[in-house]
């Protein structure tokens, strides 16, 4: 059984990797400068030209790019090739105001598939395996991302998508699924359903799982491993840079190897933007150096983590990142969907003409996220009948689903019942213990 998908890259010594990254970076900066007017302006404003970038040591000279830039350039302002060269798009989860669209050329898809193939191989996958993909298919990168990697490895790929859990388990039994790919919360749910159906892990042929797209804990990992009789591997990615497979876990389960031949990772101080030395905790920044259609230079992920080059027992030399330990902005990931409090404010503003005091309460019951929005009722929102309050709750609930793609429990509460600290309402209470 091959241990690596691409041994040369995955075990490359750091000096050679830096050389490879430098060559690719120089070429990428030129490509972006020449083809994306927005980037050219950003660089010109900073007084940086492609000639100033001679290697990765010059990376820090480049301006950062953030989600706001993506939003400002919706839908295709950052596209670096003619649209006719693109073969697919994906988009970030859920959101009307903050949706970002990523474009892919055929080569971009091929490189992405290659990154995912490394993850599947690291999880013990070979062409003999049956890969069961229960991530959602569609604009979300989870389904098609793992799908492409699985094809690349030559596995029998089951594009089951999410939902209908009993049928999923039936398929697993009938087709002998060996590797399950989905969100960790769905994996946990499948585990619970297996038990409810009176089955045990021995009734399944699963050996591994590749789980990502939302935060999960070590405890959750152990519980999933036990309930399904598998080894569970973490995978990291973001639509903006490609999708899952930017980084993946090996059998050591001690952090995720970043595919740094395609993505240069930096850790910065989120407040000053200063690059921090290896081992520091800070915001993860990616530069995609092989992407053709939608290349991002120094993209601020807002994920807080630590990078390490400590020797990994698996033999890979690719830099490792810890699981994201938090966010440098106020984004929450609930049921795998990115949620910004500002989106909830947009709904409230639209429905009430003003933003009442509100509070988001997120918790995890068993393995499922709960999502509640408490809203302080005011005189003009109330007109004596229970019917009208229930209609209001229903309308808010529908509007939230429309903008976020997930359901929230709406609770109308009395004025001043949302606690305030120093006069400012506490907007988000996240009771999940994820780090």
């Amino acid at each position, binding site marked *: 059984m091959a241990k690596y998908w691409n041994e040369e890259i995955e075990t490359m010594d750091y000096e050679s990797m830096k050389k490879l990254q430098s060559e690719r970076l120089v070429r990428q900066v030129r490509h972006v400068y020449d083809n994306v007017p927005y980037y050219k302006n950003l660089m010109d404003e900073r007084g940086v030209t492609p000639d100033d970038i001679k290697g990765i040591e010059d990376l820090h000279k480049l301006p950062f790019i953030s989600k706001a830039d993506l939003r400002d350039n919706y839908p295709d302002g950052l596209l670096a090739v003619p649209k006719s060269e693109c073969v697919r798009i994906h988009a970030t989860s859920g959101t009307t105001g903050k949706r970002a669209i990523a474009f892919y050329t055929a080569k971009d898809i091929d490189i992405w598939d290659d990154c995912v193939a490394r993850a599947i191989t690291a999880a013990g996958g070979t062409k003999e395996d049956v890969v069961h993909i229960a991530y959602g298919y569609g604009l979300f990168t989870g389904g098609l991302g793992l799908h492409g990697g699985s094809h690349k490895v030559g596995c029998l790929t089951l594009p089951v998508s999410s939902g209908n859990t009993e049928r999923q388990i039936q398929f697993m039994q009938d087709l002998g699924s060996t590797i399950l790919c989905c969100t960790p919360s769905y994996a946990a749910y499948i585990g619970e359903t297996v038990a409810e159906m009176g089955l045990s892990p021995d009734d399944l042929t699963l050996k591994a799982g590749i789980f990502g797209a939302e935060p999960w804990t070590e405890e959750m990992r152990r519980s999933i491993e036990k309930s399904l009789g598998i080894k569970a591997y973490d995978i990291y990615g973001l639509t903006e840079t490609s999708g899952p497979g930017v980084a993946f876990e090996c059998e050591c389960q001690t952090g995720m190897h970043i595919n740094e031949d395609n993505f240069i990772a930096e850790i910065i101080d989120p407040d000053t933007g200063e690059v921090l030395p290896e081992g520091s905790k800070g915001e993860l920044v990616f530069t995609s150096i092989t992407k053709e259609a939608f290349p991002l230079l120094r993209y601020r992920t807002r994920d807080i983590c630590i990078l390490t080059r400590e020797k990994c027992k698996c033999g890979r030399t690719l830099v490792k990142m810890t699981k994201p330990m938090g966010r440098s902005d106020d984004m929450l990931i609930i049921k795998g969907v990115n949620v910004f409090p500002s989106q909830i404010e947009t709904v409230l503003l639209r429905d009430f003409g003003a933003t009442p005091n509100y509070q988001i309460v997120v918790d995890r019951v068993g393995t499922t996220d709960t999502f509640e929005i408490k809203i302080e009722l005011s005189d003009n929102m109330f007109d004596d009948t229970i019917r009208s309050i229930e209609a209001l709750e229903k309308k808010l609930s529908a509007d939230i689903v429309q903008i976020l793609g997930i359901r929230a429990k709406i609770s109308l509460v009395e004025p*001043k019942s949302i606690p305030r600290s120093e006069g400012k309402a506490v907007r988000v209470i996240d009771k999940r213990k994820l780090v």
Partner: protein
Amino acid sequence: MTVKQLSVFAQNKPGRISALTKLLAENGVNIRAISVADTKDFGILRLIVSDIDKAKAALKDNAVVQSSKVLAVIAEDTPGGLASIMEALYAANVSVEYMYSAFLNPSENNACLILRVDNNDNAVSALKEAGFRLLSQEDMAKI
């Protein structure tokens, strides 16, 4: 002829009705009728009080309060007392949304009912025509 009713939104939690009624007591407001409609998460307290402005001022900083117009009608305290009122309203095509009884009785043989209907004007004329007595806002303080 209608009377003003206060509706107060209250979350279901211990001590809430106690706190609201205490506020009214401290401000010398007499409760003439009250009903509580409840759901799993919240309730609505509906009140007819002796002094609506005082009551509003007392509650406004601590609760969501809305006022609306309802009917206070005198029913005979005999079998069929309520039925005849309902019959008069039904004949005039008026729907009753909810009702409750008040703590005030103009005489031993009467009861006072608070009615929320879909059309106050039609209800008032139908009841008057049928010979029923309606109470005014002033009566809420006097009787």
